[in-house]
């Protein structure tokens, strides 16, 4: 190639003697990025949905708690949060649990930190979207549900949430994409996910441009897949008269 790019090293065995090629490193990084992203997403969706509902119910203490969570987790940089979970949080554990944690395989500890950190951070953002989804519904829907004799939980379960979740699919999609992009930060707590493997590729091969190109393409493949999946879900769950509905 005119630019002097040379991708052939990806198919050579790695210099450390492990039974893999440099491309194998990219694949293992991709696998970890998917694990962290999906694991974090599950936490984010569950915690975020619960918090989002809590923010809209007529109880000052409960909605206040959810609001405080959002302010705390949304206003601290993700990197700082990950450092907190990785370095500071273990110090608050009882000595015996801490010893056990430190004796585990360190990459599993990094993975756990990453999934929890990313999940709780994204939950704050999902919460706000679920809240705005619920608030975007006409007030009459809730009142009608209650007037029909449904309890408040039943109103949420059968009237509000089925519509609200459909309405918030587009912003939720961006959060889903973001979680994979944000997962790159976990490489700073020593997890060899895609970005971490990219850095390692550069260390070992000094092919910085080629390594970053391949890593970039891997991220794009993940995110295009997420977009396609979410468009599909959106199309399947579309409601006439609401966003995207016909």
């Amino acid at each position, binding site marked *: 190639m*005119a*630019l*002097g*790019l040379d991708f052939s090293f990806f198919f050579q065995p790695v*210099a*450390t*003697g*492990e*039974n893999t090629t440099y491309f194998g490193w990219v694949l293992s990084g991709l696998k970890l990025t998917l694990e962290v992203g999906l694991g974090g997403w599950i936490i984010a969706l569950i915690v975020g949905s619960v918090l989002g509902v809590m923010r809209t119910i007529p109880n000052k203490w409960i909605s206040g708690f959810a609001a405080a969570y959002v302010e705390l987790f949304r206003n601290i940089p993700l990197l700082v949060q990950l450092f907190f979970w990785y370095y500071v949080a273990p110090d608050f554990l009882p000595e015996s649990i801490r*010893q056990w944690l*430190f*004796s585990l*395989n*360190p*990459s599993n*500890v990094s993975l756990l930190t990453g999934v929890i950190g990313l999940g709780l951070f994204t939950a704050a953002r999902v919460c706000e979207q679920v809240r705005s989804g619920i608030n975007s519904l006409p007030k009459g829907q809730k009142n009608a549900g209650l007037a029909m004799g449904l309890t408040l939980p039943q109103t949420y379960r059968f009237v509000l949430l089925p519509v609200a979740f459909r309405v918030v699919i587009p912003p939720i999609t961006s959060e889903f994409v973001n979680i994979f992009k944000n997962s790159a930060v976990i490489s*700073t707590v*020593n997890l*060899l996910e895609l970005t971490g493997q990219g*850095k*390692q590729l*550069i*260390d*070992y091969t*000094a092919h*910085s*441009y080629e390594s*970053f*190109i391949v890593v*970039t*393409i891997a991220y*794009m493949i993940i995110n*295009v897949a997420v977009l396609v999946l979410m468009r599909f879900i959106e199309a399947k769950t579309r409601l006439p008269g609401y966003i995207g509905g016909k």
Partner: protein
Amino acid sequence: MTLSKIALAMCCVGLMAGAAQAQEAGTLKKIKDTGVIALGNRESSVPFSFYDNQHNVVGYANDVAQAIVAEVKKELKMPNLKVTQTPITSQNRIPLLTNGTIDLECGSTTNNAERQKQAAFSNTFFVIGTRLLTKNDSGVKDFADLKGKNVVTTAGTTSERLLRKMNQDEKMGMNIISAKDHGEAANMLHIGRAVAFMMDDALLAGERAKFKDPKDYSIVGKPQSYEAYGCMLRKDDPAFKKLVDKAVADYQKSGQAQKDYAKWFQQPIKAISGEPNMDFPPSAEMAALWKAPNDNADVQGAAK
């Protein structure tokens, strides 16, 4: 749409690569034209290159760099040459050098055959052995004791490669943590996330000196390799390389190197709080180097 995005990304990268190649007009000419020599330094490679209490770059490697700067000033007759310092890491030092962000990197960079494909190295200014730092009561006496344990090293270093290779070849089942810098790696050891820290012995002495309980830690194990530290400069620049080599050789033959060695390795380091003492006398390899300055990447250890 996706394809065109990829093409665009590739073009951007290509442009950057082109810009990097356009720099090859000779470092001395670049320094003369810009009036600036850009040095790369490390933030926590005590006592080679690190920050003192006033956040100035200090250390043994920085003394070497300053000797080279003095030689450049003399050669170009530019006594007021401006010197800039850019912090670099193990991971970005070669890209920053090749793209022209820095002209010379004196830190704790090993001169080896693989790196010589990307960069050139000055005369060796230090020789180390790769060993282990561990707590006295950890039971670790040599590398064989690391089986099944958590071991930390610094990402992108020769130690990382040696450690991974050893783990693979000898089926040791170690869990290897690759920390982003020496300071973080030492912290991993100190808080108990790893039982040992594999690194260049001089750096280990530096990290140990920073601990509040340095006497509880020892440097153990048979060196897995001997390595030559050199200042890194751009490849294919014989004029600059010659000047740098001469500066380092003069520095060593004049006795200044020995004086600076004693200042950083055998006395309390006044530049940082706690005034740590490395307690690290010069090895036989260092004595040999001072007698005969050279830029050999392959150091034959006296112990071998």
